[in-house]
């Protein structure tokens, strides 16, 4: 009897301990963003300082999703808050994310807030930070700019000519393109090349103007560093000067500007016959339905949207705020350079802003693969453009029909699934 009492006592003491530690447990912030060690450290020390006990754990998209799915399947989990790109969230079942309408917060852009609903009636994630893709160049390349070309309003033809000039002068192809395995080349085709040449992404996939676009891409590739198929973060090649002119994600160019601010310039993406196509990158924060402490998670999400947190996030990750805040003057060089380039790009008279693919659900990867495959076949393997476009068009049609995703800008709106014309 006495023994049994003792065991019961020990068990309840143990339960108490466990209960107490669970109540005090850190909120696990499970993120695909701010992965580099210095960024993750800055997130922990500056951004999440004052947000209570938070355990910030960034990871690659694969392991990130694997753990999340395991917790969702098990029906109980330890992840408190998710941080990921719009594309990561749109590949999820909205049912697995807690509705966040009652928080009453959001981005200043209604377009972003609509995207964050993932096709449902309520916010599934809260926009957290944004970025874009820009161009960067070593100042040594500037003297080879084609005559009459303004770096802030370049056209694709001028970019090709410029890169050709550099190649002629140095004997090396010094345009850099993120065509490596982890490179974001698909966004260049979806958000920059296609909108600039065809004023569309899906509808115009196999159009005549798309043929022109790919011809230009081949011309550009002829003056591109052939090692580009191994480049995924152009800041590295800018710094070691394998590349003088580059296109990439702002945060993948940042360390070039931060390490040698006087050596590089940032400028807008080039323009084509249909204007200057460009595309935003949106990261969001969400709460999985299995979050152990919903209140703590919501408090953390709210913290991420505070003006001072947004500015700290900008300094830590080079991603810009999604709410209206006054930016301080002591920003890192990368942020200043990228911010100015994005502002010039979006306020240029021929701006043709596109949106992130929406409504594709878990077919986002397949959608990207259509563009990457088209690139690999036309540009790397040298297959005939018309034939490849006809071929890939079928894959694209199948994805659009399966998902029923309506068109997004710059494609003209559609009734039902976006047609490939």
């Amino acid at each position, binding site marked *: 009897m006495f023994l049994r009492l003792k065991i019961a006592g020990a068990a309840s003491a143990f339960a108490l301990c466990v209960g107490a530690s669970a109540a005090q447990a850190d909120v696990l912030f499970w993120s695909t963003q701010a992965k580099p060690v210095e960024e993750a450290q800055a997130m922990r020390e500056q951004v999440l300082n004052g947000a209570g006990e938070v355990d910030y754990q960034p990871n690659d*998209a*694969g392991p990130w*999703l694997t753990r999340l799915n395991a917790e969702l399947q098990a029906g109980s989990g330890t992840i408190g808050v998710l941080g990921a790109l719009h594309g990561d969230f749109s*590949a999820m079942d909205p049912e697995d994310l807690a509705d966040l309408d009652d928080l009453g917060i959001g981005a200043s852009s209604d377009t972003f807030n609509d995207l964050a609903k993932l096709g449902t009636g309520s916010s599934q994630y809260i926009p957290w930070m944004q970025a874009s893709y820009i161009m960067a160049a070593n100042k040594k390349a500037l003297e080879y700019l084609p005559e009459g070309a303004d770096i802030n309003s370049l056209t694709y033809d001028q970019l090709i000519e410029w890169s050709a000039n550099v190649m002629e002068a140095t*004997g*090396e192809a010094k345009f850099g393109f993120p*065509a*490596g*395995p982890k490179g974001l080349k698909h966004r260049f085709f979806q958000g920059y090349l296609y909108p600039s040449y065809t004023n569309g992404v899906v509808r115009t996939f196999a159009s005549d103007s798309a043929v022109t676009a790919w011809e230009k891409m081949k011309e550009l590739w002829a003056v591109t*560093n*052939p*090692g580009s*198929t*191994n480049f995924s973060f152009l800041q590295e090649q800018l710094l*070691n000067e*394998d590349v003088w002119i580059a296109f990439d994600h702002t945060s993948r160019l940042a360390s070039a500007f931060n390490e040698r601010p006087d050596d590089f310039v940032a400028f807008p993406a080039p323009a084509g016959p249909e204007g200057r196509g460009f595309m935003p990158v949106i990261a969001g924060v969400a709460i999985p339905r299995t979050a152990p402490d919903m209140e703590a998670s919501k408090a953390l999400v709210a913290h991420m949207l505070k003006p001072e947190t947004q500015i700290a996030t900008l300094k830590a990750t080079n991603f810009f705020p999604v709410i209206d805040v006054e930016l301080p003057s002591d920003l890192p060089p990368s942020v200043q350079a990228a911010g100015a380039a994005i502002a010039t790009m979006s306020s240029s008279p021929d701006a043709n802003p596109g949106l992130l693919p929406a409504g594709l659900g*878990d077919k986002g*990867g*397949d959608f*990207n*693969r259509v563009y990457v*495959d088209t690139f*690999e*076949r036309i540009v*790397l393997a040298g297959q005939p453009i018309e034939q490849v476009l006809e071929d890939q068009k079928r894959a694209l049609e199948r994805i659009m029909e399966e998902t029923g995703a309506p068109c997004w800008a710059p494609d003209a709106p559609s009734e039902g699934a976006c047609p490939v014309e």
Partner: protein
Amino acid sequence: MNPRLLPYFLIFPVTLFLCLFFLYPFVLVSQEAFSNENGYNLDNFREVTSYWKFPISLKNTFLLAAAVVPVQLALSLLMATMVNRMKRGRDLILYIWTIPLGISDLAAGIIWLAIFEQSGFLNSMLGGLGLIDSPTNFLSYQTPVMVFVAIMLAEIWRATAIMLVILVAGIGLIPKEYYEAGEVFGASPWQRFLKITLPLLRPSLQTALVLRVILAFEVFAVVQALGGTLFPVLMGETYAYQFDLLDGGAAAAIALIILAISITFTLIIMRALRVPKGATI
């Protein structure tokens, strides 16, 4: 304990472990490969094999295995014989030769990338010797042969040691008497190698080849680091299906295809190098 039951008792923990961590996941993966939302069918296999990159990655995987494994076999035999003849410093040499075994394959890929890339060691060395004016890019889409050679070199450097270790152990088991008898009858070193070492090494060769060939079909990280998207292999496609396309069924299907290839080759090697009963030393 009943001595007849003892062996079963002893292998029970291992069997349990394998059932739990190999057989059970294997059944799950097969289930995933052979089914989709429409029930059990071959759709996943049809999808992955009809993708335009599938024949290319299949060809590349085979090509790499065919180029790497024979070279490794020859090298490891040579190295094992050399080590076996050494009187002093044998262990030291063996340790040095097996260092690559301790390095992860991704790290190995990155080491070789540092050698071959545009601002890499090879370029700066050639530049320093005055052999080239400006750094050339060895690993580009224009030089597929060079990409293949780089991957081959990295694979050979990285994974020859695993065969070496097995063969060194095997050679050590061959009784000296056979060699002495061979010498008495005037067999040359080459003849002794062909007629004594190779036949008696068969069980070790079998193990070494099976292990190595299976690893060759699973090659991934080295290729990823050196070839990027230029040299698609089966394992890379598996990764892309699982993590880029989030299509577990298709990834499972390719994984099963790799498994089928591995099993086929294991059976072929086992059959070709089988040791007749009663002929063991």
